[in-house]
């Protein structure tokens, strides 16, 4: 008995010693917050203790919150002392009312151990990888002759780790088509294609091919397609009547920027803050249209401030989602439940965008006037004269006003109206007889002139402007000139000081008691008179000023900052509602990422751009390289392009992502072309895309990249490729959007007589990027292939595979027309037999000879069609597009085959 007892004691001792040993080791183990703790907190705690809800006054979202006193008055986590921490005690409690997670299954022992050790080790917080600056990454120590550059090493290491073998290089035809569609979105010149296909030195030829494609002006068009989804570019404003918007100069700016390989940091800076750069060029102003692509609402009776605010929120969300893969819009209503962003930080950030002159007015002010060369010369002469007779500051003001019409007070903001209305509450200020309106708090310091734009056709009226009250001191009074159109007039008065309410009055004895609306205002601009009065040449310069002011030139909506006196205050919106303004906030970026803000950064959009493009900004470079990867492989290294935060998908190759981000900044100086070249030079990229049985089973979605990716072409690529193949693609670049063939009845907006008028000649064969994009009724065939509607920033297109897509490429007249042109091109080769023609057509599409099996299929189809069209010549004529014209049955049959071939999976897919 005794011995047994001893044995028992001994074994208990051994077990206990073992347990101590285990706990000793587990206590020793260094806990990693991100890898070990955060997943548990996110899964088990944060839904009640963080972000939206902070039950018991306890939150585990931020360290300072987690260590702060809870409702009980004591902190729940005491670093170094798990045994004293309520946070740990509650996990172990037996009382169901005490035990956490409340009314949910208890944490398992491993989880509790991790949390305890973590508290013991000091409850250190760790940042999510994507919020830490990009650092140099060590290259994996692998070597294989398959590897072509350093990027491949990351892929190879992972393949090796999982016992996968990379695939061999794809054949030349496949690779030619792949890299062309990827870099220029269409086929290369025949000469370049033949050079690559026939070169003796494939390795050298491939690099020449890549360099040539990157140098092609079509490169910019292809990558602009991608960017316009981020920029939510469209040719209309959105909402009810969805009227036209002339903003295509921005699209052209993007194409040019990509083509000249503008460094990505500059690319972003000019779009965010081009207007605030010193002496901005037209191009820099136009770049800021990035933020003016927001939908605006002209519907009768809408509140301009509501939709101005919506546009500002949209700018914030687009900046985060598009440039930084972060779902910041969550923070609009409350602190982010998972990522380190606080509610008021949303509004601090919003303040960067909240002080521009755009106010959702129908005319889309501020507009940049794009003067031609001679007007620009005139403007330059005028401004240098102003500089000589006055100051550089005065010259800049003159220039800003003539180029952008700013700063001007939109008449829609007038209030204290008597016998006056804001038409439909949002169009403009309208006067009846004996009208008064107030312009609130106008900065009149040093001002002795009002320039305003209005229209009235009732003679006999007099206007006057008063300060401080409707009957206050008169600044000026004058008989109101009338005319049939809007006009700009100058009213001069004595130099004023201070900020005042300005009252505008109108009366006209001729009108008597008429209720008619007789004066229509557009905007008011208070400024000093043109300096240099009395100096030689003044009259001529005054005329130049007037000519430039009234010049009819193309315009583009741009960003212009409010002058000091017009600055809006910035508030938190309670629960995200713009109508419930909470505490006032100052401009700034979220505290968790403030480390990337340069010390000398100004508190405006220039500062914002400096922060975005600072080398320490952890998100901008990672987001861009991830996007480039996604464009080539169909899926990003982080699949959720819209979210790199803790709730986004984990990267498949984090080290590679970081390595590329580092290269983009430090090695390539933000050059997208250089980065892309490195990407397409990879062995990984060049692999064959055939799916082996092993890969089908183990890695169907190719996340290890043991083969090339097969990706359905984008809406633009499908159109552009088909135009390339059929030989009708217009080489024309830039300019107003075009209207290729579209079925009747697609446009039907209320209160909008705009019609889709099919473009003539070559304009109907322009690349997809130039197709007119109407937000509420986008080009149907593009939408069928998952084109984004562009009402908001779309960081990622989700590809679908639907019968409606088949119907587009089978039946859309645009595609049937292209098939006819394709056949014309085939016929021009002079091939004699149907089989040879089909074979020729196939190789025109895919750069490779047709297989016997495929040829047989299409020969049979050809013969069937030939039989039908021979019997029925009317159908043949109709099929060829003109029922009146007699056609060869052979041609019609070949078109039918061409139409079918253009629908092949291998044609609509990048193999």
């Amino acid at each position: 008995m005794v011995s047994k007892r001893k044995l028992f004691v001994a074994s208990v001792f051994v077990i206990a010693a073992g347990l101590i040993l285990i706990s000793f080791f587990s206590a020793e183990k260094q806990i990693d917050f991100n890898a070990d703790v955060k997943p548990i907190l996110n899964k088990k705690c944060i839904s009640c203790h963080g972000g939206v809800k902070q039950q018991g006054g306890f939150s585990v979202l931020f360290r300072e919150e987690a260590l702060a006193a809870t409702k009980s008055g004591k902190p729940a986590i005491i670093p170094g002392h798990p045994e004293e921490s309520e946070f740990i005690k509650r996990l172990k409690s037996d009382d169901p009312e005490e035990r956490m997670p409340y009314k949910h299954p208890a944490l398992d022992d491993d989880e509790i151990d991790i949390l305890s050790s973590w508290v013991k080790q000091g409850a250190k917080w760790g940042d999510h990888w994507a919020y830490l600056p990009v650092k140099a990454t060590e290259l994996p120590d692998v070597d294989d002759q398959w590897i072509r550059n350093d990027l491949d090493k990351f892929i190879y290491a992972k393949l090796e780790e999982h016992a996968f073998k990379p695939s061999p290089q794809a054949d030349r035809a496949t690779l030619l088509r792949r890299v062309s569609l990827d870099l220029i979105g269409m086929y290369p010149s025949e000469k370049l294609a033949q050079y690559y296909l026939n070169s003796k030195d494939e390795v050298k030829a491939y690099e020449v091919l890549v360099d040539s494609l990157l140098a092609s002006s079509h490169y910019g068009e292809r990558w602009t397609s991608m960017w316009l989804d981020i920029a939510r570019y469209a040719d209309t404003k959105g909402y009810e009547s969805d009227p036209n918007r002339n903003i295509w100069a921005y699209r052209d700016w993007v194409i040019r920027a990509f083509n000249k390989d503008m460094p990505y940091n500059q690319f972003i800076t000019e779009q965010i803050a081009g207007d605030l750069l010193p002496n901005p060029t037209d191009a820099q102003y136009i770049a800021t249209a990035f933020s003016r692509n927001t939908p605006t609402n002209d519907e009768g009776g809408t509140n301009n401030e509501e939709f101005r605010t919506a546009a500002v929120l949209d700018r914030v969300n687009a900046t985060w989602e598009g440039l930084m893969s972060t779902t910041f819009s969550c923070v609009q209503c409350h602190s982010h439940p998972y990522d380190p962003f606080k509610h008021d930080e949303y509004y601090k950030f919003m303040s960067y965008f909240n002080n521009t002159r755009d106010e959702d007015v129908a005319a889309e002010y501020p507009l940049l006037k794009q003067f031609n060369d001679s007007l620009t010369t005139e403007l330059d002469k005028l401004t240098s004269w102003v500089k000589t007779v006055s100051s550089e500051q005065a010259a800049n003001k003159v220039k800003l006003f003539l180029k952008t019409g700013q700063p001007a007070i939109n008449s829609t903001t007038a209030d204290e109206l008597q016998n006056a209305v804001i038409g439909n509450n949002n169009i403009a200020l309208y006067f009846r007889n004996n009208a008064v309106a107030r312009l609130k708090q106008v900065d009149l310091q040093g001002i002795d002139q009002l320039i305003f734009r209005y229209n009235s056709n009732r003679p006999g009226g007099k206007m006057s402007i008063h300060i401080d009250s409707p009957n206050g001191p008169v600044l000026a009074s004058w008989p109101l000139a009338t005319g049939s159109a809007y006009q700009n007039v100058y009213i001069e008065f004595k130099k004023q000081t201070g900020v005042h309410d300005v009252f505008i009055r109108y009366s006209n004895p001729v009108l008597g008691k008429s209720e008619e609306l007789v004066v229509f205002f557009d905007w008011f601009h208070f400024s000093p008179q043109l300096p240099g009065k009395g100096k030689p040449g003044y009259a001529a310069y005054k005329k130049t000023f007037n000519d430039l002011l009234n010049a009819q030139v193309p315009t583009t909506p741009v960003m212009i900052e409010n002058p000091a006196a017009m600055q809006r205050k910035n508030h938190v919106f309670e629960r995200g509602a713009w109508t419930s303004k909470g505490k006032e906030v100052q401009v700034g970026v979220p505290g968790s990422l403030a480390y990337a803000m340069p010390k000398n950064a100004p508190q405006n959009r220039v500062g914002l751009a400096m922060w975005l493009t600072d080398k320490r900004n952890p998100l901008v470079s990672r987001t861009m390289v991830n996007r480039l990867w996604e464009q080539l492989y169909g899926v990003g290294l982080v699949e959720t392009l819209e979210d790199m935060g803790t709730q986004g998908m984990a990267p498949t190759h984090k080290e590679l992502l970081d390595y590329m981000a580092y290269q983009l900044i430090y090695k390539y100086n933000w050059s997208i072309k250089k980065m892309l070249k490195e990407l397409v030079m990879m062995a990984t990229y060049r692999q064959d895309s055939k799916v082996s049985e092993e890969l089908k089973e183990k890695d169907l979605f190719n996340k290890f990249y043991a083969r090339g990716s097969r990706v359905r072409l984008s809406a633009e690529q499908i159109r552009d490729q088909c135009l390339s193949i059929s030989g009708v693609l217009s080489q024309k670049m830039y300019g107003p959007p075009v209207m290729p063939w579209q079925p009747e009845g697609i446009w039907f907006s209320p209160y909008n007589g705009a019609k889709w008028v099919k473009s003539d000649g070559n304009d109907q064969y322009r690349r997809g990027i130039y197709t007119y994009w109407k937000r509420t009724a986008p080009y149907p065939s593009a939408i069928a292939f998952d084109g984004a509607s562009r009402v908001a920033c779309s960081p990622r297109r989700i590809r679908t595979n639907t019968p409606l897509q088949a119907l587009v490429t089978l039946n859309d007249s645009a595609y049937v027309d292209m098939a006819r042109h394709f056949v014309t091109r085939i016929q021009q080769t002079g091939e004699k037999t149907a089989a040879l023609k089909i074979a020729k057509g196939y190789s025109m599409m895919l750069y490779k000879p047709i297989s016997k099996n495929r040829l047989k299929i299409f020969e049979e189809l050809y013969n069937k069609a030939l039989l039908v069209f021979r019997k029925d010549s009317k159908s043949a004529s109709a099929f060829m597009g003109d029922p009146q014209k007699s056609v060869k049955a052979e041609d019609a049959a070949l078109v039918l085959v061409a139409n079918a071939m253009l629908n092949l999976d291998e044609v609509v897919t990048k193999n």
Partner: protein
Amino acid sequence: MTRDELNAYKLVKEAQEAQLSGVTRRHFLKESAMGLGALAMGSLLGSCGNLFSSPQTKIAYDPAHPLLPKSPPFVGKAKSVIYLHMAGAPSQLELFDFKPELMKMDGQDCPPSLLAGKQFAFITGVPKMLGPQASFAKYGQSAALVSENLPHFSTMVDDVSFLKAVKTDQFNHAPAQLLVHTGTPRLGRPSIGSWVTYGLGTENQNLPGYVVLTSGGSFPDAGKSVWGSGFLPSVYQGVQCRSEGDPVLFIKDPDGMNRDLRKASIQAINEANEQQYQEYNDPEILSRIAQYEMAYRMQISAPEVMNINDEPAYIHEMYGTQPGKACFANNVLLARKLVEKGVRYVQLFDWGWDAHGDSPSNSLNIGLKNKCRSIDKPITALLLDLKQRGLLEETLVVWGGEFGRTPMMENRNGAQNPFKGRDHHTEAFTMWMAGGGIKKGFTHGETDEIGYSAVSGKVDAFDIQATILNQLGFNHEQFTYPFQGRPFRLTDVGGKVIHEIIA
């Protein structure tokens, strides 16, 4: 497809669906389409809103067959929906909400209490009150009030539930329509029909699952965005079926191509794709083959179904159709046909209900009466016809606008409008629902004596959306889709099922 075929087909598909659930990574991913993180998020019960305690409804999304019929999480009473939206917002005061007190105030200045702190789309200054511009009577056993503008519909009141106290916070057409159909006044979210087809698929694979029909000479004010799929895959956007041109875009073969040639051409494409599959082994190619087969079947069946000419004369008479025209009556008849053929969600928009009084066609005495005449027979016939076919019980019919109209006459820009009209009104308006498990002959909600404010039974767009989803078998709080790092739902953070009107 006959009903038997349809049933057999559904059985096969259900079996496939069961087999598919959660097998491959793709399903795992596509279930949430935004990927792993998002899915993890779903399982965390986390969200921006107050969804923390709600389990999420799992939708088996098969990218190769995205519209296969699926079962809802619980048994719904309705299988399909016909939503009749009167775009422009019909006046409840001339149709269903009879206010004798308002008649007494006719022509008086609007009391300041009704104007203070309120914002209207067009009214400025002090408008005059405007009495009802139609006479009313009580109908049916339920003694529901209906105006003389809808004489036929007045015979159907014992089949419908009226919602007399619907509210909104949007007083402009486009945002208000977006709110009704997508749950937000801004652009970019999926419409109800997209959610429903995402969740339930559709029963007839040869037809689109979500069909949109428009009449009245214009699209609804928010354009195609009100039938957009937002962040859901684009396959779930509404497919507009048109009365002129192709009934479905690109459904017609090119001129001069006959059916046999089309068949041969699709066969050739698919045979070549089959070879491609042999070479590449990528299942996505099989999916493309399936899509081309489906496109072919759709080409055959859609034009046939879309053609209402084969309906008997008495049916045409009943609906008051106008052959060959893009009119509401034709669309309503077509809606019935589509639902009968297994289409899940049919959305009608009839534009031209914006009776401001700024022109005869936009007035209460002329324009509104004409609009009412154009819908009165069709909506009546729809209910009768569905009933006689035994389809009303499984078809939810919803009628309404995007907001109501003011008890005041509109004085646009401070001057009285030349014709009798009313401005946009957010505080109270009337909608009705019928069939699909909705109470018969019932009225829920009440407005004050002049029809300005709702006093009881208030409901809003989210409540109506929640009720539609409920009738189809979904809990609106659990039916979510991960986007931008959180689960989104149609009803955002609002919505209560209107249990009062559920039978």
